[in-house]
């Protein structure tokens, strides 16, 4: 379909903003339907973009470029390639789902909530579409503000701590990124003696691929970008804001956080960090691979013993997102494809898991796994849907999670079999924590805590099913026909690989040994410290959740 000169990207980006203005001026009883309406409108337009996007054409499509700060060559420039399109559609989809899912749980300051949510959507879409580094940075920071408010105002008991931690942590990274953006712009200007294009992504990418940046600048700027993106992904060891933010955020906030915001970092790696600084990316790839491996395994291990449903899912996110960074930085075709698939799938599945946790929380006002039990008898439909997404998250073949995970592992295997073996070990751990959670919540006798709730424990409502249905449908479709997504990406994948001079071997063996030893040391130290601190912990934590055959 040809859209002519219709500025579709700007429309998608600023429709939610118009929605935010509308919600702000209209009476608050209209806040819900108006917000949902604008989110749905943005969704429809994004679907229009999806069908009119031509995956076989290279480069960016529907590009708009307007001069903004001409002195420094800063432009308002948007453009879409397959990756952007997929992520924008994911964003608009999850946004209306989240807004719909907030109808019941959010009862206070509903107007402000919806305004925040719509502005959040603007920022997220803008990040995925911006092709000017300065504009990208602005959208990147816009995202923080509404999320800060959503967690800080409508969050749980410890929300202030969580939201301040979230914002400050993310700011540390992004301010360094701003410095790096300015540094690249100045470097560009110093070489070419013009400011035109100094912030333009395409110009800078070509400049970089011709070896325009000095290696010192590349390394410094890459590290700055890396820090910003790694915090957002989040990569070990920058992940600790995530469990707190997830736990305290309202359900819809968790959904947006998991489904979209974590993708910002991964998107940043693929779109900016690798193409702009390819040599530095290759230099640091082994270290990033090791960090990803740690995140994958360590996140899963920590998830095994989480007492709180949301915290468990949060740590599983750390583990799953490790696959994304792993796939990107092995620089093989399957690896990058798998990483991108994993991004989308993680958005769908983890978003759904947070919605499902929200359903229980809505009824029980509790998320402690130990208090749950026997929901299969009380809420059979809910448990069926929950089980579906649990297995999707665990990488059951036939559902979408598997394809991304497998392709990533295959790409990693081509790169180095031992790395893949270590990473694939997570399939056992993920089955462990997911089935532990599912079994504890769904199976067994109905717990006393739930019994006390009585009729309040109604099964999942049609509205809640409506929020989950699109995600579930996509999980099935992308599980059986991943080609639908993969076709969108081959341009992006090729660009990433070309940028990173794929094919040249990277010797990883020493890094793995170092990383392994490092992990071991960390483990031993942790163990020793744990033993030292053990006496006052025994009562509260040990024995382990004895979910074994013998114990029951």
């Amino acid at each position: 379909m040809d859209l002519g000169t219709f500025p579709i990207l700007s429309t998608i980006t600023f429709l939610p903003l118009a929605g935010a203005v509308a919600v702000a001026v209209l009476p608050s009883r209209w806040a819900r339907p108006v917000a949902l309406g604008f989110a749905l409108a943005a969704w429809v337009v994004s679907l229009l973009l999806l069908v009119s996007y031509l995956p076989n054409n290279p480069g960016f499509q529907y590009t708009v470029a307007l001069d903004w700060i001409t002195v420094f060559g800063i432009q308002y420039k948007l453009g879409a390639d397959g990756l952007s399109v997929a992520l924008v559609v994911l964003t608009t989809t999850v946004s209306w789902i989240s807004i719909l899912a907030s109808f019941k749980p959010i009862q206070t300051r509903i107007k402000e909530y919806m305004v925040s949510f719509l502005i959040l959507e603007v920022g997220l879409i803008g990040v995925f579409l911006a092709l000017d580094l300065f504009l990208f940075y602005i959208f990147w920071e816009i995202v923080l503000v509404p999320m800060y408010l959503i967690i800080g105002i409508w969050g749980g008991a410890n929300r202030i701590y969580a939201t301040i931690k979230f914002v400050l942590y993310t700011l540390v990274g992004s301010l360094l990124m701003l410095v790096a953006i300015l540094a690249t712009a100045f470097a560009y200007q110093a070489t070419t003696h013009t400011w035109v294009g100094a912030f333009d992504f395409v110009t800078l990418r070509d400049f970089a691929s011709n070896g325009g940046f000095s290696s010192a600048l590349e390394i410094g700027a890459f590290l700055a970008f890396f820090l910003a993106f790694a915090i957002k992904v989040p990569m070990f060891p920058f992940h600790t804001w995530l469990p707190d933010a997830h736990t305290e955020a309202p359900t819809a906030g968790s959904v947006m956080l998991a489904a979209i915001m974590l993708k910002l970092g991964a998107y940043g790696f693929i779109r900016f960090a690798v193409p702009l600084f390819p040599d530095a990316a290759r230099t640091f790839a082994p270290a990033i691979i090791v960090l990803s491996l740690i995140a994958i395994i360590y996140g899963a291990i920590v998830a095994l013993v989480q007492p709180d449903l949301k915290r468990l899912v949060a740590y599983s996110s750390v583990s799953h997102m490790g696959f994304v960074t792993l796939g990107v930085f092995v620089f093989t075709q399957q690896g990058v494809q798998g990483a991108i698939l994993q991004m989308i799938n993680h958005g769908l599945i983890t978003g759904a898991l947070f919605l499902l946790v929200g359903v229980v929380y809505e009824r029980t006002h509790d998320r402690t796994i130990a208090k749950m039990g026997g929901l299969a008898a009380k809420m059979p439909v809910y448990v069926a849907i929950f089980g579906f997404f649990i297995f999707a998250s665990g990488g059951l073949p036939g559902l979408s999670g598997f394809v991304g995970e497998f392709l990533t592992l295959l790409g990693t295997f081509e790169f180095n079999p031992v790395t893949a073996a270590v990473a694939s070990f997570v399939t056992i751990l993920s089955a462990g924590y997911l089935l532990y959670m599912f079994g504890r919540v769904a199976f067994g006798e109905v717990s006393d805590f739930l019994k006390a709730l009585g009729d309040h424990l109604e099964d999942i409502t049609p509205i809640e099913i409506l929020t989950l249905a699109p995600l579930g449908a996509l999980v099935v479709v992308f599980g059986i026909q991943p080609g639908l997504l993969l076709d969108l990406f081959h341009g992006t994948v090729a660009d990433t690989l070309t940028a990173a001079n794929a094919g040249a071997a990277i010797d990883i063996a020493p890094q793995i040994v170092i990383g392994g030893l490092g992990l071991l040391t960390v483990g031993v130290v942790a163990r020793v410290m744990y033993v030292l601190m053990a006496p006052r912990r025994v009562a509260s934590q040990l024995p382990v959740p004895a979910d074994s055959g013998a114990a029951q």
Partner: protein
Amino acid sequence: MNLESLIPVLLLLPMGGFLITAAIGRRLHKQAHWIPVLAILAVWVLAMLLVINVLTGTAPLLAGSETHGYAFAWFTWIPAGDFVVNVGFVVDPLTACLLIVVTTIGLLVHVYSIGYMSHDASYWRFFAYLNLFMFSMLLLVLADSWLVVFVAWELVGLSSYLLIGFWFRKRSAALAAKKAFIVNRVGDLGFILGIMAIFVNTGTLDIRDSIHILTSPTLAAFPIPLWITALLIFTGAMGKSAQFPLHVWLPDAMEGPTPVSALIHAATMVNAGVYLVARANPLFAAVPSTMVVVAAIGIFTAILAASIAMTQTDIKRVLAYSTLSQLGYMFAALGVGAWTAAIFHLMTHGFFKGLLFLGSGSVIHSVHEEQDMRKMGGLAKKIPITYATMLIGSLAIAGIPPLAGFFSKDEILGESFKLGFLWVWAIGFVVAGLTAFYMFRLMGLTFWGEFRGPKAIWDKIHESPWVMTVPLILLAIPSIGLGMALGLPFGSSTLSGWLEPIFRQADTLMGRAAEPFALFGIDGALIILSVAVAAAGIAVAWRLFGTNLLGLRIKGRPETVTAMSARAPFLYRASLNKWWFDDLNHLLFMVIGGRIAYAAWWFDREVVDGTVNAIGRGTVSSGRGLRRIQTGRVQNYALGIAIGLIVMAGSYLVLAGR
């Protein structure tokens, strides 16, 4: 009409049955079984049509091979650059043999479940899961791509999880389901790595193509050594077929309803590993050392499980350990290169073990869900059909001629002997005696002697309804006759005729020629020996646990049993406690693993997050510290100005004076 195009119908029928029953089954109440049962009936008919055509050789030759069969390419699943996975199916003689077992037993179990599950509130859910399982299992045997096999591999795992945990209110059932899934995942991990190794080595995931490339002698150097690839694939087989050390899930899986145990955990799913190794036979044959590993693990599992089965008191657990033991036999057969014997045993075992499980279900049903054999006894009078069919099953598994188990087991033992694996034969020989013993211990405790349970139950014991007994009778027929049908004539049996093209390449790779069968020589002697050891096992069981067969009345001697167990306390306790594998796993994974996980969590909170918080706290407290300077008194500030002035002027003077 092309018969190829029937193959996807085989899959769509149970999938449709699953989806429809899952969607509307709740409203169908006690009629929920119709759609699933009819779906499987249709599958059975279609499958038989294909099977007969393939086995009689009327099917066309498969492209690039000398095997008759049907191939069907469906759609492209993953198009990821140079990595492409196509979903396609193939029905060759090996698949046909599996199809016979899967569809026949599947159908009979479906029918049986109508009776067995009739009192269950979630009747519809059971049938929906059963159809899901049938879909997955059929996909497993039909798929012609490694990755699609893996998909089915996981899906049978999922169905198994759902069915083991069917009675989810029982915490033990939920835990057993979880254990089964996770232990299987360990095997799957090896399998998926093996698949990646195959892709990296060959660039394709098509089973036949990849094996062809891997075993062609021109390509010597692969990135991943062939023996690693073969052993990784075997790891997958070990998980699904519950071979040591991944055997721990199968006995626990008996928490599921008995028809499930019969279908999944005896007759079909657990055979998947055997099927996989048989399918990949040239891969193993190309590296003989991997075959020794297969044989060793198989035969070790066989004797380990047989030793445990001797003392278990739960009727289903005895059968579960028996299944482990028989699966061990099959792997031993694969390991020594007796491919046909392994598939032969797979088929006969599927039928008689399915029969035994369904029979045990009938027993359990009649004594009101009691599974402890110590509370049974003398049931032969009350439930004659169950008794007669289970007796047939027991004789078959014990290896009494001319029943089915005799032929297949004897072929395994004979081949191991003749192919030079004397140690496999010797252990297998002992296991044969143990098998006969524990099966007739089970028979003695259950059907003969006096009833040891409450009188109230005894009075109410009655034979199961016809939907349950008819499948028993129908399964008893192949338990008697399948061995004769497939295993004769000795030396060049019907089955080996069918499967010869499949295993030809492996035999060539191993440099083996068919030896003539010597009924009045070595083979005859081996047959007599193995029948003798089975008879001895039965005799010992009769002496200790009694019998009442064909007028032969022997009373059990419980006191002798007690005395014997007291004489060898270690062995007895080891057997009773399953050689402490569950305890070892508990210690390793729950206790130690849990400690590690808690340590990691502590590390995360206190060290990783602690650092973050420490930075935050550091900033705050340094701000608080610096605030003291801000006294609010003008003179203090003025003093600061004055001092600053003096320092600046002073330093100027000093520096300028230089």
